């Protein structure tokens, strides 16, 4: 097992050295025929839904995992994305390619609102403030007739490109899967740059980060708006997916706990962990759908169990296989740089 995983890791490292986008291109090609291996339509629906959940969880991982801001408002941003698309599609007859960017923009603006309390609040207090926001959004949707109130909005049109409508789940997969890959790639690209380091510094010690020149508020806000981008994207994709129906029950605190479970189970601050968590939790949630109330009990217990016994989640366990390898590679690189320095000016490196 260990050899297998580190073998894959080595393979990807080699691919990346050819071109940074190559592994992603290969992942795209490998995933393309996925709907062909399904038994029925429902499985394709589930795969599409998993893709959307991966986008949502990846977004939450940015703000919670990397920047360390405990937000419970993420599901409200998801709702805002979904309802913006729903309203634009059903009331104004706008097409998908207009709705998607507008929904993302709406979620990002709301993301600023969720992010502002983080300037002053921390930990559980921030969670409470953002929870209030999430509840306010959900209740507002439930009582507003324009937004379909308790009966939801139906009849959202499927995306249409050049006269071809993505009305089947199989077709929708070819829209949602590449977007999901691009979203995961983007979060990798950003979080592995100086921005990701700044997020982590803000998470670990905001005062220290600030005194080293990081504008803490700015980076908190960037994290919130980035995660809102992902939430809006996921929301819009969800609204436009068959059956084109959004209901307030899809955006409750319970859904928030589910997304939180994905991130916690996968490993906070671990992008691949979040992806794996999203896949596992969505499938388990689907299997246990008949036992709805026990499901919550299960999820809550798994969150507590994960935090207590596996604080770094599934991603942490996988990382353990990777780390040795990465450590060796890093040591080699370090040694190389060191040789360069020592060779250049020996007096600087002594002492």
């Amino acid at each position: 097992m260990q050899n297998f995983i580190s073998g894959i890791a080595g393979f990807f490292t080699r691919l990346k050295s050819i071109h940074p986008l190559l592994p992603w291109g290969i992942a795209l090609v490998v995933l393309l025929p996925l709907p062909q291996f399904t038994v029925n339509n429902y499985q394709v629906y589930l795969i599409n839904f998993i893709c959307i959940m991966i986008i949502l969880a990846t977004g939450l991982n940015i703000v919670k995992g990397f920047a360390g801001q405990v937000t419970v408002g993420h599901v409200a941003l998801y709702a805002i994305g979904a309802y913006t698309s729903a309203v634009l599609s059903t009331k104004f007859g706008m097409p998908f390619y207009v709705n998607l960017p507008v929904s993302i923009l709406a979620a990002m603006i709301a993301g600023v609102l969720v992010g502002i309390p983080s300037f002053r609040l921390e930990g559980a207090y921030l969670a409470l403030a953002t929870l209030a926001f999430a509840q306010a959004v959900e209740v507002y949707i439930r009582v507003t007739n324009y937004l379909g109130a308790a009966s939801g909005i139906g009849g959202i049109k499927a995306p249409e490109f050049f006269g071809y409508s993505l009305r089947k789940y199989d077709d929708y997969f070819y829209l949602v899967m590449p977007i999901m890959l691009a979203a995961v790639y983007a979060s990798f690209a950003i979080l592995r740059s100086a921005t990701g380091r700044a997020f982590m510094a803000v998470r670990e010690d905001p005062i220290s980060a600030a005194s080293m020149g990081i504008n803490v508020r700015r980076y908190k806000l960037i994290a919130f708006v980035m995660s809102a981008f992902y939430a809006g994207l996921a929301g819009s994709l969800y609204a436009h997916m068959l059956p084109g129906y959004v209901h307030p029950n899809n955006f409750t605190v319970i859904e928030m706990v589910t997304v939180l479970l994905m991130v916690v189970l996968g490993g906070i601050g671990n992008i691949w962990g979040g992806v794996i968590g999203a896949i596992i939790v969505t499938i388990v949630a689907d299997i246990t759908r008949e036992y709805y109330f026990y499901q919550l009990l299960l999820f809550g217990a798994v969150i507590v169990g994960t935090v207590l016994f596996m604080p770094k989640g599934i991603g942490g366990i996988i990382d353990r296989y990777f780390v040795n390898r990465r450590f060796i590679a890093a040591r080699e690189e370090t040694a190389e740089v060191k040789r360069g320095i020592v060779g250049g000016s020996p007096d600087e490196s002594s002492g």
Partner: protein
Amino acid sequence: MLEVKGLNKSFGGLHAIRDVDFSLPEGEIRGLIGPNGSGKSTFFNLLSGVYPVDSGTVEVNGKDLTNAEPHEVAGAGIARTFQLLRMFTEMTVLENVMIGYHNHVQYGPLAGVFGFGRVGREEKIIRREMMEVLAFIGLEDFADIPASELSIGQRRLLALGRAMAMKPRLLLLDEPAAGLSPVNVDHIMAIIVRMKEKFGLTVVIVEHILKVVMETCDRVSVLDHGVKIAEGLPQEVRDDEAVVEAYLGREMDDEEVKRAIHA
């Protein structure tokens, strides 16, 4: 270089800093000493923007930094270290130093998505430059280890490395040698002096160990109860009556002592 005039700061009823004037010419190593609770750390926190000041002004190279945000202070070329270190313990030693370099990174926050080639090239350069910093402080062998696994002495070195990566002009060191053995104290002081000479820095050192301050610093300022009670060459300050009194306390008359004991 650094001009502080009439600085005041109170926490409730405690007047922590009282009308402190502080003037520092370029290129000097200044020692800042005083008994526990005399306001040394508070003074640093006021300079670096962690606390807002009640009144007074802070000027660096003619630029007003009174009540500036900490990151603005850092942007003006002032680096500080913390008495309690404040490492990013879950990040590697190299990443810790890279955070210090943050303000010098050329690409924007979202450049990673589209400009991956450019970001990759620059990251490589940053990595190399930061390895040189680690080599300077002697931690190059620990680059990829989480900072949490370093010893106290190594963390003190890393704190210097993080400050050095910021490429500052003024360095504020809050007890850089606290908790170290005498050998390590000498080692870290030697590094501070070498750093100062190599980069032409101006340095302020808060320190408890008087011997260190006397040996390293060009001039020494003394705080007591938030008031600057003395300033001058190390020799002068050591022989100053007010300083001796602040450190050792007033000698009591025999009778007074007796009364205190028998009370």
